[in-house]
Each structure stands twice: as C-alpha cells, then as structure tokens.
C-alpha cells in the first residue's frame, strides 16, 4: 500500500486530509458521520477569547456551485471552551490544530498563550483571514507589516507549531506570506473564503444579514489552486491547501500545486462523507498509478527541476 503519511512542522499525520476550520463538527461532536481519526489532523472551529453571538441572520445563501455566507464565528465563553470543548479535543485519537482569532494583536497573543497552556493541541492556526468580522482577521491578513508583528508576537507565546491562515487577495498574498515566514510561522493555510456579496433585486439591498459575506465551495477552487501554486514558489513553508475541495481529484490537484495537506470545507455541509470517500479514492488512484508515496505529489505541477525558495529569516518588504 502507498505511504500516505505527512509530517508538517512536526505534526505527524497518517494521511494528508483535514478539514477547514468551522466546517466539521460542533462543540466537541466530531463523529456524526465518520470517525474523526479518519483524517490526518483535525482543525476545529476558530475560538476567540470573548463570547460572541455571531452575525445576524440571514447567514447562508446558495449560489452556483457554492455558498455565500456570513456566520461571524459565534463563540462560547473561553471558560466554557476550556471546561467542555478542550478536554474533548484533548482526548480525540487524532492530532488537533486549534484555530484562534483575536480583534487586536494583544488579543491574538492572549488567545495563543491560553490555547497553548491547555496542553490539548499539537498546533495552532492563526486565523488572519476571517472575511466576516469587523475587527481582527483581515486587518492583519492583508497587511504584511501587521501580519509580521502579530506572528512575531504569537511566536513568543507558544512553542507549538503555528499555522497562519491567509486570505485570497492577489495584491498582498505573497508579501503577507513572506512576512509570516520571516516572523517565525511554521506553515500557511490557504485560501480562506474570499469576501462576496449578493444583492436582492427587489429591495436593492445586500441579501446576507451582515451585508458583506464570503464565498466558498467548488466555485472558488481554481482560484485557490492558483494561490497555493503561487505561494509554493514564493516561500519555503509547508502549505495546507483548501478552497472548494470536494473529492480525491481536488486533493491531487492541490497537492500538485504545492499543498502538503488538503482540507475539505464547505462540501462537508452537503456531502458529509466526501472526506472518507476521497481518502479511499486517493489510495486507489495512487495504487493504479504505481505511486508509493503520496509526498511525491507535493508541488509536482512545478516540474522536477523546480527548487523552492530558501527560508526567509528577515522581513522582506515586497510592497
């Protein structure tokens, strides 16, 4: 059988499949359709240091091949997360990368330190790209200087591997990713859902309760593959690729573009068995192709002669 294992920043994954934060399970309930340990690593919904009800309804709108949404990361209190969710996550038979977000640099540092101290996680994902919050997230994900300072600060708060989740913005993607690498992040995850809008032609007003929302699902996949491909050529960090992934073919495509691991997101709302089915199909495909190690797919689209850039140690001002 082919070797499916992947190691990203010291996190041992038995296969390269994972889930996009906030798209799988809720409040510690992770086995509704298949055992959580089917995947290589679990990324649960983003937590924040404050309780928050989330954005007003309407929160979801179906669009062609995708979902327009603005949920706004509804959050239980940190005390409740620590008392109820964290022990459940700690006991899961799968490595966990906990996604975190703050409104300010100080709040990010605080949530990183607190999450790290729970001794429940194998890594932390810094959500620098939530499209649906008024403060935090994209304030840092679009600005290389802010991203650098934030990751540098977070780096001081934890020894856990840090994964920075990035926004799909052409103008800042490379410079932000280089800043994050220089600041000491261990990996990047991309793409988060791009900002989007639907307008009701009767009222001439935005349809989603928050006005502005996000676009996710298969509609964004080619854009996401391009951005993974771009970062593979721009930084040395391992990449968690995502954005519209629905089946094993998409997994192969993202890995060929440069992803070391691939996340299933919005598709799980529609087809909750997509991930375990893709795992079986991926293994079958590798056997049929005579490929004995899934790692050989990483970056294959760049050609065998291509060399990734050397690690960045200093902030590089690309803008």
């Amino acid at each position, binding site marked *: 059988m082919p070797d499916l294992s992947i190691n990203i920043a010291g996190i041992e994954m038995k296969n390269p499949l994972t889930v996009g934060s906030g798209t799988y399970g809720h409040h510690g309930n992770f086995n509704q359709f298949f055992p959580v340990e089917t995947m290589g690593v679990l990324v649960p919904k983003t937590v924040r240091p404050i309780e928050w009800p989330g954005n007003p309804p309407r929160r*979801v709108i179906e669009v062609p091949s995708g*979902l327009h*949404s603005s949920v706004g990361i*509804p959050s239980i209190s940190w005390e409740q997360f620590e008392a109820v969710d964290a022990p459940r996550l700690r006991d899961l038979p799968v490595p966990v990368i906990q996604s975190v977000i703050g409104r300010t640099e100080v709040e990010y540092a605080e949530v990183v330190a607190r999450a790290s101290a729970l001794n429940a996680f194998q890594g932390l994902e810094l959500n620098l790209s939530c499209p649906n919050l008024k403060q935090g997230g994209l304030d840092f994900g679009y600005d290389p200087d802010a991203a650098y300072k934030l990751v540098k600060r977070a780096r001081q708060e934890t020894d856990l591997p840090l994964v920075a989740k990035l926004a799909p913005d052409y103008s800042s993607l490379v410079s932000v990713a280089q800043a994050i690498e220089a600041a000491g992040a261990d990996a990047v995850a991309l793409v988060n859902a791009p900002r989007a809008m639907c307008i009701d032609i009767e009222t001439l007003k935005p349809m989603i309760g928050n006005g502005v929302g996000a676009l996710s699902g298969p509609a964004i996949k080619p854009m996401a593959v391009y951005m993974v491909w771009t970062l593979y050529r721009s930084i040395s960090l391992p990449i968690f690729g995502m954005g519209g992934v629905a089946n094993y073919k998409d997994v192969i495509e993202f890995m060929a573009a440069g992803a070391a691991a691939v996340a299933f997101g919005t598709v799980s709302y*529609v*087809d909750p068995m997509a991930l375990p089915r893709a795992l079986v199909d991926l293994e079958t495909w590798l056997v049929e192709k005579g490929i004995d190690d899934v790692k050989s797919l990483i970056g294959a689209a760049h050609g065998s002669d291509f060399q990734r850039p050397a690690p960045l140690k200093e902030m590089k001002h690309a803008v």
Partner: protein
Amino acid sequence: MEQINASVVSNEPLTGEYWLLQVDAPSISAALEPGQFVNIRVSGEHGPFLRRPFSVYRVSSDRTRLQVAYKLVGEGCRLMRDTLRPGTTCDLIGPLGTGYDLPAEARTIALVGRGIGIAALPTLADLAASRGITSHAFLSARTRDNIVGTEIFSHHGGMVFLHSDDQPGGVTMVTDHLLAEASKIDFDAIYVCGSNRLIRAADTLARKLNIPAQSAMEQHMACGFGDCHGCVIEVNLDPAGEKKAYREVCHYGPVFNTWEVVNA
C-alpha cells in the same frame, strides 16, 4: 441521524402545486419523531449545491417508509419531481432536529397549519391518535386545492376546519375557528406551522389558557445537522422576551415554543 441512499417508491402529484415523494428508509422512519425533518440532495451536473430540508409528511404504519410533501417552487423541487423516479435512489440525511413535545397527559390538542406548513403536522396527528389523543385541525392556504392532508386529519376523527384565501368574502378565518372552539373545548396544547400570524394567535391563546404551544420554524440552511451555524433565528430566552439569543433551527428546532419565537 444518518445519510442513506433511499429507494424511491413513488413520486406523484398530491394536490394543487404539491407533489408527494415516498422512499424506503426503515432506519430513519423508525427513529423519526413528529416535527423532525430530512435533508435531501438532488443535484444535476452543476447544482443546486445545497441540500433541501423537508418536514416528513407521513411515516408508513410499519415504519419502513417515509413521505415528503413538496411544493413545486425552485430548481431543487423541479429536479426532485423530474429525477426521483421509482427505481432510483434519493440521497437523504435524517432524522434531523428537535420535534414536537406531546405531553403524556394531553387528551385534546389543536393543530394549526398554513400552506406547506401543514405538511409538518400529519405525523403529530398520527402519534396523537396512537395515544388516544383527539386532535382538531385548523388548516388554511391561498387556494382550496393547496390545503394538503385534510383526509389524514379527518380520518383520526377530530374536527377539521378549512379556510382558503380564494373563498368568497365573509368566511371565517381558521384563527376565529380556533378561538371559537377553544371556548367550548379544553385544549391541552396547540401546535402550529406555517405563518407568523398563526404563531402569534396560537401564542396569545396558549398564554390565556396557560397551555403549551409550539411552532415548527423555517430558516435557510446549509448543512441541517448543526455544523455550519447558518440557520439561526433570534429567539426569546424568557417568556417576557427580555433576553434574546440566536438559535440554530436545525439543532434547537425546527420546533420551538411559541413564546420563544413570538416578537423575537
């Protein structure tokens, strides 16, 4: 709760703009409680992308088959009509959500439905009948032929009051019927689905009579099983409506107490 590919038994016109889909789904049918729903995926090459949530209209007496009544609006329902033929399979997830609470001591209940909302009530009428509880139905729709399920409610022996908006003037509304009957009958609970006006009327009456009232609610959904947090509505956390919060219709509902949803 599980995802299955259920064999389609039949898929035929019901009445008015409604069609009735029947599938073989023993595990889901056996576990289903009145008011719970199923989430159906019908998809052509390019969509629709999301599943479609439906209340379960009826479960067969041997609890192996379930029926979904659907109105022919939108691409998803037209695909349901055109592609779910006997011999094909239907991808569905269920049973989902929290259903109606039928108190053990209840003897007489009122079922109040409008339009497609009526489709959420026959399973409750069936459960009530099995416990010897009398249910009286108050049903309305825009047109007479769009009132579904009248024969199910009358079969159980309770009274059935009908109103359609296309009736000639001066005809009594179902809420007037409900108030009139409530002055003669001791209702132990009221169950509603279909319009905010009916929910308000049921809630007002229930508070006056000091009996429970519940309503099945709708909201646009993505997953239907609690993961996406997309289908929230604002609810009252206390009967006075002083504290409010968002609650997922797929998880906390679709059935809520009427005091939770009135003026929330």
